[in-house]
């Protein structure tokens, strides 16, 4: 799988790693990524960019993640957990 990226804390979860890979180009300030990082407050990623990342995840895993779910998540960890929950339901 993807090699550990610099700045990403060790985490074996593949969904988590995939999200970190997608976030890397948007991580302008080089913030060290971990599950408690707030996408908007810490990474300054705008709401539409979050939706675009989620679209990539949807197509990768062939699942649909409602906008409603995304608007309820603030941190990387919450997003990972939400995707796991949907993967469990839809696959």
């Amino acid at each position, binding site marked *: 799988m993807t090699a550990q990226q610099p700045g990403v804390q060790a985490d074996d979860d593949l969904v988590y790693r995939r999200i970190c890979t997608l976030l890397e180009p948007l991580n302008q300030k080089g913030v060290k990524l971990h599950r408690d990082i707030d996408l908007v407050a810490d990474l300054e990623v*705008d*709401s*539409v*960019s979050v*939706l*675009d990342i*989620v*679209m990539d995840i*949807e*197509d990768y895993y*062939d*699942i*649909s*993640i*409602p*906008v*409603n779910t995304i608007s309820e998540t603030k941190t990387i960890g919450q997003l990972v957990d939400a995707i796991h929950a949907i993967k469990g339901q*839809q696959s």
Partner: protein
Amino acid sequence: MSLFDKFEKTAALYNQLSEMGKNPFTVVMEEVLGPTRAMIKGRETVLAGTHNYLGQTFEPKAIAAAKEALDNEGTGTTGSRFANGTFAGHKRLERDIADFLGMKHCVVFSTGYVANLGAIAGLIDPSEDAVLVDADCHACIYDACSLSGAETIRFRHNDPDSLDKRLSRLDPKFKGKLVCIEGMYSMYGDTAPVKEFVEVAHRHGAMLLVDEAHSFGVYGKTGKGVAEAEGVMDKIDFYTGTFSKALAAIGGFVASNHPQAEYLRFSSRPYKFTASPSPATIASAGAALKNIKETPAIREALWANAERLHAALTQFGLRLASGPAPVISVLLPTKEEAFAAWNFLLDQGVYVNMAIPPGTPGKDSLLRLAVSSAHTGDDIDQLVAAYGAMAEAFQAARVTA
């Protein structure tokens, strides 16, 4: 004070731009001189940042109709469409719009924003329906989804296959499915493959709503919109539009061939709980509609101006978002460059819109020029000269940058 804390960062940027005299979001038109000219910062300026596509803001027949309605029916309805604010004029305009579009039913709302809120939230029951929305749909469609409370799935912009995939994997528990797209998208001036979307939506038993806010009166052989240009006017389930662009008033509507669209009059809270458009507004919108219907030359003039401007900007090497359209957007890589270029144009006596992410489809910022049929030869010359100078001054705006 905690309510305000979250705004501090944005407020700092906003105030800083205002102090530098570089704030595109605080422009005041001090005096309006005509459909394409106004005084801005004490200077006569060409307006290419309003959505006066068909130049109807000073149409004499529309002004006369509005004055007559003011004299005969007063300044306001003081009531909502549902309860106490429906006059004969509102009903007449609904019939006129339905006739123009060749659709059976039409419901008039107070603004275009409210029409989308009213249509989507009025149709959807969050306990059994789902909404699928193009990624680049306008904020009002997303707000409508929030208001409806329904499960909302976003698909890739202008990508029927992406919609197809999402409809295929949708939980069968959903009884009703509504797909929302736009005719022309206002940021890039690109249009939807409506015909393909009709096919995909209907194959999955979903209904299709097309918001033609920017394309009503502008696209199609008779100005019915992108759905007409795509030959599928009779296939779309809901058509939403606004009076605030081609018709140069304020208000909005939902048109449909489904007789049950009339149910929106009691199912739609944005129909029931806000005041109806004033009599003068309804009268001018009706007169403008009649005028653009009877005068195809207005639409032809818009397209001639759009093509001339698009050709000129292309020749300057500017990086444009799409082909010739009533919206011509120049892409710039950063918001700082967009601010500077926007100010440069304003200093040349040209007013356009500036848009920055996340209000834009991609990572670029853009300068949006909205063409009008009322732009005169002089207006166009001034626009071309200003953009030519901008192309010289801003390498970043050019394809070859």
